[in-house]
Each structure stands twice: as structure tokens, then as C-alpha cells.
């Protein structure tokens, strides 16, 4: 069973994403910020990470940089309410950039695509 980490500071989002992904047959871990996310990454052999950008303590961009430093091959998807970070070079290292939507089909398709590789 593939292991996915969802990092988002909003509890409602974490709950929604994990419910949906579990339904798809993944094992889901959650974190409320970047720091928590890194702790899990260090302890759990994950297959994919979904990162929010705006989070307290450590934001998604810093988390992305550290994940890519430690595990360059671990796919990281950015899922954010903001579109403009697409232009930020720091987000270019992510494997996908998704703007949040109540319709989770785009997200689930991206997860499937990256886990197949």
C-alpha cells in the first residue's frame, strides 16, 4: 500500500484529503506544517507528499526545498489556494502545482500519475 503524506494547516482540508485518498486505497499520513511533515518523512518511507504552501512554522516552499535535498526522488505535489507561486522559481522543483478546488479529481489524477512512475 502506497504511503502518502498530506501537509496542510487546515484541519478540514487534511480530513477531506485523507478520507478521499484512503478511499482510493492509499495509506495517508497528515501534518499541520512543514516541520511536522519533515519529521514524518524522516521516519516513514513515503511514496508521495502533498504540500500546502501557506503554513505556520515552516511553509511549503521551505519544506519542498528540504525534501528535495534529502529525498530528490520523492514526488512532491504542491496544493495551494494561491496561483501566483507558480512563477516562484522555488516552486519549480515540485513535481506538480495544483490550485485547490472542491473537485478533487485533478489532485487524485496527479497522485495516480506520479505514483505510477
Amino acid at each position, binding site marked *: 500500500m502506497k504511503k502518502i503524506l498530506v501537509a496542510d494547516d487546515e484541519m478540514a482540508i487534511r480530513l477531506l484529503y485523507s478520507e478521499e485518498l484512503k478511499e482510493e486505497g492509499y495509506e495517508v499520513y497528515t501534518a499541520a506544517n512543514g516541520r511536522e511533515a519533515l519529521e514524518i518523512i524522516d521516519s516513514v518511507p513515503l511514496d508521495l507528499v502533498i504540500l500546502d504552501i501557506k503554513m505556520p512554522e515552516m511553509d511549503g516552499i521551505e519544506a519542498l526545498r528540504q525534501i528535495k535535498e534529502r529525498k530528490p526522488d520523492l514526488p512532491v505535489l504542491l496544493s495551494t*489556494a494561491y496561483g*501566483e507561486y507558480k*512563477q516562484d522559481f522555488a516552486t519549480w522543483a515540485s513535481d506538480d502545482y495544483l490550485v485547490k478546488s*472542491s473537485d478533487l479529481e485533478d489532485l487524485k489524477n496527479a497522485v495516480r500519475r506520479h505514483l505510477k512512475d
Partner: protein
Amino acid sequence: MSERTAFMSQMVELLTSTVSFGERLSNMVHLLARFMKVDEALYFGLDKTKETLNLQISSRGALPGQPRLEFPLGQGVVGAAAKTRKPQMVHRDQEGVLLDNAPLEKIQPDFHTLAAFPVADDNFLYGVLLLIDTHLRTFTPSERQAVHLASLMLAATLRQGLLQEEAKKRIAELSVLFEVGKALSSTVELDDLLERVVSTTAKVINARGAALQIIDAETGETRVTSYYGQVPVAKLCPPLPSGGEASGSAEMPFLQGETSDAQGRIHYHLAVPLTFKRQLHGTLCVFDKIIPGGGPQPFDPENRQLMFTMAGLIVNALENALTYQQVETLAERNERMVRNLTVLQEVSQAMLTTVQEERLLDIIIQGLIQPSGLGFDRVQILEVDEASQTLRGRKGAQRPPDAPALPLSEVLFQPLAKELPTSEWQIPISPGLGAMAQAVLRMRPVHQHPSLPQSGAGAPWPSTFDAQEYFVVPLVVKDRATGVIVVDNQASGRPLEPEPLHVLQMLATQAALMLENAHLYSTIEANNRELMLIRERMLESDRLAALSSLASGMAHEIRNPLVSIGGFARRIAKLVEKDSPLRGYVEVIQEEVSRLEKLLREILDFTGENLSYFGDHDLSQLIEDTLPLLQRDLDACHIKVVKDLQPIPRIHCDDRQIKQVFYNLFQNARQAMHETGGTLTIRTYTQEREDGLYAAAAVSDTGGGIPLDVLHNIFNPFFSTKDYGTGLGLSIAQRIVARHYGHIEVKNELGRGVTFIVTLPIAKYCLVKDAGQGAALAGALNAPSGGRR
């Protein structure tokens, strides 16, 4: 007594009568002889030497001929009376009387009694009165007193005669001087005046001839300017006494001499120098004084005096004439200068009334061609085109042949009546290409004389320019020639005079400044307009930015809860039975959330948030897509395109912006080669840099390169060497590349061309070190809320 009274009254009558002086004297002597009842009465006059007494009057009338009867002072009874100033009476039989007075025997051979009475007044002896009788006579005291009284009357008459003669002479002299003085102060021409002075001098002195010699101030040669009467050629230029030049000597110098001619006759001359300002300027010379019935006479001191007076008059006249001539020359020069300065001043003032280049050019040209201005036939103004290093025609005009002479102040503001086409003027500025190029290069006026070979041979001279003589004056501002003014008088064939050319040069200095000012003014005006536009746009975008910042902030806050609501609604929908009434409610929630999310996207699109189209693109393909946009322009400029596009990993970028970068670079290359044509070479390749792998594109032109002095400016906004374009092309390119964390470099090869190298990071293989800086830049350029938060 009555007889004596009658005698006395008769004498007094004679004394006061108006008959001539000589007649009065002889009448008196005759009367005395009759009254004294003597055989004869004689009057001996003392001559000028005061040594000799000459017989002048006899009571019997006629005098014996030559030799004249005379007694030296002290000799005979006459000489004794003169010497002692006392009456002397002798008788023939007295010892020595006959011997002493022997000459008297010629008049009265048998004289017996001789009585001599001095004729004198209180201070002067005029002569001696001698009474002769052939008998022994004595004179009573009464008779003696009568003779004494008679001699006093004679003395008075003589004195009166002398005074009268003297007065006549003085009056004559005065009237001469008066005439000459009148002539001097009149408007008589100098030559006439000198002629008159010379002839008057000769006449007054009674000279046979007179001559005026003047030393020419420039050549130093002496020439006779005027002469009168007979002038012996040999004596024309008597050597002047050296004292003539050193007028400091107390004695007034003069030259007096005598020579004898071939016939042995003696000739006299008298010369006085004409000196003023301590310099000898000539001589006035008279020859041979003539007295009626006599031969040439030497000149006396009175003549010298008169000569000096005349010399003084001539000097005065010469001085006046010279001064007048100088004053006239000065006045003439002043008048010309004033006229020229007036032209200069009026044109200057007119130029001050405008800052518009066209109007200024009109004023300058009018000032140069109008008859009331400098009056040239034709004027052309050419300006330096810095970019192409050529002189191009700016404006020119010809004076219409029937131009009325209007006051300059009026005509300066009128439009040009006969403007000339100037488009044909296009002269490369290089040595040897004519006077115009020379004037620009040397920044000095060039006068093309008709006698000199036409230096424009081989230059692309306009066919309309046919002048043999012309004058080119450069317009120099801050050590830089901005153009030239060319004037000629070809139409009328007049030569170019130095004075108007001089004024033209002064005018050119000012015209250059005014034209430069006008040019700067128009540039500033254009810049101001552009700045105003930019400012307006910026204000507009500021307002939008504030609005969109507010909107996007709210939109983002709403998005997260909306995602949760919508997401869970979908989950609920899956769990709800197909026919449950809840299903309809959940669907309403889902639809409403979708509607809100759509609205949100639209708001964020509007605020610019989602307008960037970042994606992964092939750089070579982007270049291929851009080229067709310029193909027609490139073809029109005969620019060949050489492509060497390698397959390289895709880059993450906004494809439209990267296309913009290459569009600007291609456009720049085309402009560099638009006159000459050339080759545009585009090469893509990968490049290793310190921080990773980059996609690179090199764009080269063959447009000659960028001058070193402007190289540092090329990325500055609004910098342009062209008259068109905003100067923003390269600046925009640089910003876009920076926004993509790339670099743009310039390789400039002067004389060949420029290569711009754009490198963009390949994100997967690149850890850009200065990403933070790039992000800041990107943030600054992306209005709403760039940068990470």
C-alpha cells in the same frame, strides 16, 4: 605879421588837406621857399639805413636825374644839421663851405647862403630842410621860428605819411590773412585752399613765384602740391635746414639763399618748413621778390614773418583736413559697425521670441538674406546627423529678386518667400569631402574662394548648388559642431565682403546655441509627455493593484473553507441514497460551491494572479515560433537568418514572455543592420554554469557593434540611439530574463556586430543560488502579492 599869419594858415591847411602825401610835402616846401624869399628850398630825407640823406623834394619842382644827390650823415651843412639836430647856417665865403657842400653846386652853382633845418619831432629825425640863396642872407629870429614851425609841420606830415603807409600795409596783410582764414574755415577743398594760400603769399610778398611742397606720409617722397607764378625748376626743392625737423629750437628755422642764373642774374628764394606734431611735413617757398621797375630783391624779415604765418595756416589746414579725413573714416566705419550690430541685435532679439526650431531657422535665414539684414543671395542650413555622420539639408532659402527693402524687425517674422529644397544635401563628414565637411571637422569657418579649386569634387554635391564662391560657418555648441550655415552671392555675382561674413560668424555662435536650446526644449517636451503618460499608467496600475490586493486577499481566505465545504458535500453525496431527499440538498451545496469557486477564479484572473502561463517549454521551439513574426521585416532589410538550434531539455517559463525576449532581440539586431543588411545568427545550446545546467540562446548581428560610449547604457529604460522606438526593448528583455532567473550578456565586437546571449535555468538540473533575489525582482514586477509569505 599878416604875411606870416597867411603863410602859417596856408601851411596848416596843407597839413590837414586830403591831397596825397607826396603832393602835400612838395607844396609845403614850395610855400616855405616863397615865404622865406629864398632862391630854392630842398628836402633831404633820411634813408632806412639812417646813414644817408637823399634829396627828395625841391621847391622848383623837377629833380636832377641820376645819380641822386645825397649827403652822408655829418657831412656838409645838411649832414651837420641832421647829426646835431640843430639849424646850421653857412656862407659861401666861409672856410671849407664850398668844399663841403660841393654837390649842391649841381643845383645852385652860385649859392651863397645855406641854411639847414632838421625836420624832426620829439623822437624821430625824418630829414633836413635846406634853404639856398644866391645872396648873402641872414634870418631874423622871427623868420627862424617860422622855418622851425614849418619843419615841425613837415615832420608831422611825414610821420602821418609813414603811419598811413604802415597802416595800409597792415590792412593789406590783415585782409589777406582774413581771406585765407575765411577760406580755411569754409568748405573749400583742401587743394583749392592750398592753391589760394600759395598764390596769396606770392602776391603779398610780391614774389615772382611760390611753391608748396608736401612730404607724403607713406612714401616719404616730396611732391609739389601747389605753385604760383614762375617757379625755377632747379629751386623747387631747396634742401631743408635740419632745424626744420627739430622744431624745438627757439629760432624759427627758415632757408634763405641766392643763386645766379646763366645770364648772371641773381635769384633769391625763401623757404619755411611746415611742421606739426614735431614732424616736418613740407615747405612753403617763395622766389624772387620783385619791386616795380626794379630787379629781384632779397627778402626782408617782414616777408619771413608773413611766410611763417602762412606756413602756420597751411599746417592748420592740413591738420584739419587730416583730422577730418580720419573722422570721416571713423564715422563711416562706425556707421557700418552700428548697422551690422543692429542686424545682429535684431536677429538675436527675434530669436529670443521662440523656442520652435522651424521658426528659429526662418528668423536666421531672413536675417541673412534680407537686404536690410546681411543681404546674402542664398542661405542653406545643414545639420549634423550623428548616427550616420552626415550633413543633411535642414532648410534653405533664396532672396527673391524683387524683394522690397523692408525694416528688418518686420521682415524677420515673415515666412520665407523662396524656400529651397534641402533633401538633396547629404554629405558624409569626412576630410576631403568639401568645405562643409571641413567646417564641421575643424569647427572653423571655411571660405571657398572662386580662385581656389572646388574642394567638393567627388562629394555627393546637390546638383542645384552651383556657387563658385561661398562661405561655410559651423554651428558649434559645447565643442561640438551641430551643423553649418552656407551663404553665397551666386545669383547676383557679387563677391562676399568680409564684414557681413564677420557678423555672420557672430550670429552663428548665437544661432547654434538657440537651435540647440530649441532642440533640447523639444526633446524635453517629448520626454515630459512620455513621462506624463507613464505616470498616468502607473497611477492607474497602482489603483488596480490596491483593488486586486484586497480582492485576492479575500478570495484566498474564502478558497480554503470553500474547498472543505465543497469537498465534504461531494463525500456526503456519495453516501446518500439515490432517492433520499438529502441528495437534492447536497447537490445544491455542491453547485453553489462550484459557482463560488468559478467566481473566485474570475476575480483572481482579473487581478492578474493567474495570468502567468508558466509551463515547461522547448527554448528552440519558442525561437522558431517567434521568427515568423519578424520575417517580413528581416527580408525587407536584406537580412539573412542562420539558425543552429540544438535539442535541449525543456525549461520552465512563461512562453509568451520568453517569446517577447527574443522578439525584442531580433528587432534590435534588425535595426542595427537595417541600412546595410547582414546576417542574423541564432544558436541554442546547453551551458554548464556554477549552479547547474542552463538553456542558452545566442543572437548575433553584423551591424557594426555598439559604440563604447553608449555600451553601458543599452539596458537602461528609454535609452535609444534611434529616433524611433521607446528605448525599452532591451530593458524589457532583461527584466523578463531576470524574472526567469536567467542571465543576459552582451558580446560587442566593434566594427563587426553584437551577440546577445540569453541563458535560462533548466529547473530540474539547476539550484539557482540567487533565486531569492530573482524572486524579489519577480515579486516587484508582479503587482499583487508575489514572493513567498
